[in-house]
């Protein structure tokens, strides 16, 4: 300890050793309690102020949550989402400086059935969380993931956004809100604490079969994320919420960004990691915690007694290389130790990306992925990684034309100018249905027909997930039904295609 002072004069090259004797960088009076980044020491009070301000600033800057909006907080029990809950509580309290003016509700999705928790364990966890939720006074919903089996097909269809709210309308809305009812905005529903939804065991089993049918942990993860999101959106819709707040923090998002890239989700990157995500149209997903690092949240929760509940997940107790998600997580956290700006740099990259498909770009559901509801990214030009993969698969399975020494040099009239490779059967470019319909030439025919059929309805990455599944028959009904509907529609369109003047225009009008 006594060496600290000596080091202090040693030029800027050496990293300063954090010390309990240092003063807060903000008020320069109180002694520091936490070190957030190298050199940023905060005292307890300033840290709290800084933390709270960040949350308000994030919401204020983006102007997506309007006063009076009903907002559903997705709380998983983890430190990040619990911290988000406490921030909302804080912001809604009467004496808050810049009061938040929306109507929150809480949803907790109980995934215990997937990770193999017993019924008792699940009841215990839920009870623990209920205690936390009840203390907030907000209405809350505990939804077992098994309910995903009973969802309607409308979940995977993008609903038209009910009313466009340009950011300019924000100020008016605030004024109006202040005039009309500046009073109580909380209307906690009286919930019967005993009314826990009972989950039939058969449902749990079915769900487990579904998850186990994915052969790799990577695919299981991806599938679980998709199902969870569908259930969240559905809950929000049925309970009348228009926005859903997710607790993703900066560290998590940096990991998610690299994971998404590694999974081939580049096209959806901005939606997966940006502040707001409007792929579902009427429901907007928001990530207000994205400016906080995991470390900040952990400090805050610790200093201000924010309760979180540990719940095992799919990759709890797995090895580093168990899945791509897990591998990326350990890569980022390890690199962060040696290069402290890793997370923030990756995170900033996400801010520079475009939210490609805006909410109103297309209403036609057939060019959206069946699972992740993002615009399909499989219609790429001839020279793309997607096409190259198809070519490789095809070439590895078909016999090459018998050639002897003599016809090796056979002068195939290949014009370099022609942009379409003559042999590539997989680029059946016609039709705006984008999905590379493999019906005709039947390459990749080794797969069962079911899977191949789904393929045309999926984006690149979701297709990889489905490819890792032993069978698609375990998928929930709503997905299979919607798949059939879309296939019927595209078949219909094929039949009438010669009468359609211009695909794009006709469909904008038709649907």
């Amino acid at each position, binding site marked *: 300890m006594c060496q600290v002072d000596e080091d202090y004069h040693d030029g800027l090259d050496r990293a300063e050793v954090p010390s309990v004797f240092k003063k807060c960088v903000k008020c320069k009076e109180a002694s520091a309690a936490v070190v957030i980044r190298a050199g940023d020491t905060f005292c307890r009070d300033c840290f709290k102020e800084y933390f709270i301000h960040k949350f308000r600033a994030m919401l204020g800057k983006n102007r997506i949550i309007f006063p009076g909006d009903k907002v559903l907080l997705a709380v998983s029990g983890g430190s990040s989402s619990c911290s988000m809950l406490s921030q909302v509580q804080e912001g809604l309290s009467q004496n808050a400086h810049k009061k938040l003016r929306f109507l929150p509700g809480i949803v907790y999705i109980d995934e215990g059935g997937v990770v193999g928790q017993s019924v008792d364990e699940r009841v215990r966890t839920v009870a623990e969380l209920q205690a936390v939720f009840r203390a907030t006074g907000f209405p809350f919903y505990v939804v077992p993931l098994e309910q995903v089996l009973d969802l309607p097909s409308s979940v995977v269809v993008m609903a038209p956004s009910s009313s466009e709210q340009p950011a300019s309308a924000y100020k008016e809305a605030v004024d109006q809100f202040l005039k009309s009812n500046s009073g109580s905005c909380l209307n906690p529903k009286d919930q019967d604490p005993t009314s826990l939804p009972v989950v039939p065991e058969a449902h749990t089993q079915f769900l487990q079969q579904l998850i186990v049918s994915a052969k*790799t942990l*990577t695919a299981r993860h991806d599938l679980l994320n998709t199902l969870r999101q569908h259930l969240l959106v559905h809950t929000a819709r049925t309970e009348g919420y228009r926005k859903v707040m997710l607790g993703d923090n900066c560290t998590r998002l940096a990991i998610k960004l*690299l994971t998404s*890239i*590694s*999974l*081939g989700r*580049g*096209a959806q*990157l*901005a939606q997966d990691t940006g502040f707001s995500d409007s792929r579902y149209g009427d429901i907007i997903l928001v990530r207000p915690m994205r400016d906080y690092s995991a470390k900040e949240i952990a400090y805050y929760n610790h200093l201000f007694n924010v309760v979180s509940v540990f719940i095992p997940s799919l990759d709890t107790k797995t090895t580093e*290389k168990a*899945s*791509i998600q897990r*591998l990326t997580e350990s*890569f980022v956290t390890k*690199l962060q130790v040696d*290069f402290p700006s890793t997370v923030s*740099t*990756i995170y*900033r*990259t996400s*801010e*520079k*990306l*475009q939210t*490609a498909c805006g909410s109103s770009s297309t209403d036609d559901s057939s060019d959206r992925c069946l699972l992740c509801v993002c615009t399909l*990214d499989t219609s*790429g030009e*001839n*020279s*793309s*990684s*997607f*096409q*190259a*993969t198809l*070519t*490789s*698969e095809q*070439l*590895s*399975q*078909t*016999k*090459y034309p018998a050639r002897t020494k003599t016809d*090796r040099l056979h*002068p*195939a009239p*290949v014009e*370099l*100018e*022609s*942009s379409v*490779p003559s*042999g*590539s059967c997989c680029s059946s470019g016609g039709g705006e249905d984008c999905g590379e319909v493999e019906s005709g030439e039947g390459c990749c025919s080794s797969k069962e027909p079911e899977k191949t059929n789904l393929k045309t309805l999926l984006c*690149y*990455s979701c297709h*990889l997930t489905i490819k890792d599944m032993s069978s698609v028959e375990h998928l929930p009904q709503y997905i299979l039904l919607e798949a059939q509907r879309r296939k019927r529609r595209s078949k219909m369109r094929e039949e009438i295609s010669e009468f359609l003047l211009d695909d794009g225009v006709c469909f904008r009008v038709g649907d």
Partner: protein
Amino acid sequence: MATDHQNPASKQQQPGTSAFKLVIYEQENFQGRCHELTGPSNNLQEAGVEKVGSILVLCGPWVGYEQASCKGEQYVFEKGEYPRWDSWTNSRRSDTIVAFRPIKVDSQEHKIVLYENPSFAGKKIEIIDDDVPSFHAHGYQEKVSSVRVQSGTWVGYQYPGYRGYQYLFEKGEYKDSSEFGAQIPQIQSFRAGLVGDFVNMPILCSSCAEKRAMLKRPKTGHSLCKECFFWAFEEEVHRTILAANLFQPGEIVGIAASGGKDSTVLAHVMKLLNDRYNYGLELMLLSVDEGITGYRDDSLETVKRNQQQYELPLMIVSYEELYGWTMDAIVKQVGLKNNCTFCGVFRRQALDRGAIMLKVDKICTGHNADDVAETVLMNVMRGDIARLRRCTAISTVSEGDGVVPRCKPLKYAYEKEIVLYAYFKKLDYFSTECIYSPNAYRGHARTFLKDLESVRPSSIMDIIHSGENLSVRDGVKMPVQGTCGRCGYISSQALCKACVLLEGLNRGLPRLGIGKHHRLHEKLLSQQPLTEKEERKLKSVDF
């Protein structure tokens, strides 16, 4: 469990990790009592195994013997299930197995010489890396009395089509047929390499369904024979070239050749495709001599050999000619840190200058899919959005005038497949790391990518797909392309990076080009001296 009898033959073959595992069941179809083996056993009966009814090989290969102490008829077991005695022998002479030992397979290469007479005399036949279903087809009709195994593990069979008695051959010499356990010197087929994943019979190529598969494609996981792999690899490059419309007939194309595996394979494939599909291109090799003793001088020798093999003209441009500095000299001044910055910037420009000297229309480089994916990851990790957007482009035609367009025909080829291709084609390439330290941060990205590939082999293509589909927000500032005020090369600043670096070297201020010193560019252009303070900052390089 296995007895601990020491077996002289396998003493040195004890695997370090004891990965071998074999389960013996006393009855057929994996019924009855079972015994697990993880090492050699000279006498199963002594170990309490009454009879061998069926065998499950979890990790192999293994060899079983009819008699104790590894004598008598031999049966080779690879990874898989053997439910009945007739699944491991087709000589059908005996159904007993009394001894077992694991076979150590460590060599990737396989070379064996067979001799007609004992003591390596008489007519001989040499086999490399390939299975021989029948010697008759190869014109060898003599007996096999002595064998010399130069590398790899081989199994000989009494009859054509891998039938009859089996004889295991490991590295070493077998002077007489009794030394490999044969009573009559007759061997008529041979298999090279015991890998693991098949049940007694080799897997067939998924493409031609005729020949035995030699490799598992890293990219798709399919098992292919050598010929089909060559064809698929070449055809894929061909289709990449067509789909991206990389070349026009009559163009002069320079192949950037370093002598490494990527550029060697590129040169080979380009020449081959140009002939096969009548591209009508005039190809030439273009090399850059960075002046790194012990690295580039050696690899350039490889390029020169390639030049003769492929009969392509070769042009070598050196840093010394172009800049007056060799990398060796630069490292002396700059130190081991950051010298890659110099080398990278100079090489790019050197290639362009060489291309202009040769009057080349296009340059193609050997960047492979791994390189592209790695660059995508790197640029995300560095937040370099401008590079992120263009790093997946297959060609730089869009970059404007003043530069010779560069393209990457191997963009979708996995590094592993390039190595496989070079290996099986026996291409001559140079493989040594540069003697100056590699870029540390890139190393992290590389390791991460390799790990990703091991979890999901398609990851490399998936990352490229991601990169190709990224869209950048409108408001993000992008560098504007201009030209260098000194040499006229493209640059986003007043001076191009190469000129800044060179200026730094010549003024003895090596840090000038490292980090951002845009403010000084005007001063440099007008040949003004720098202030003392600026100089001090740029001089210090800590060794």
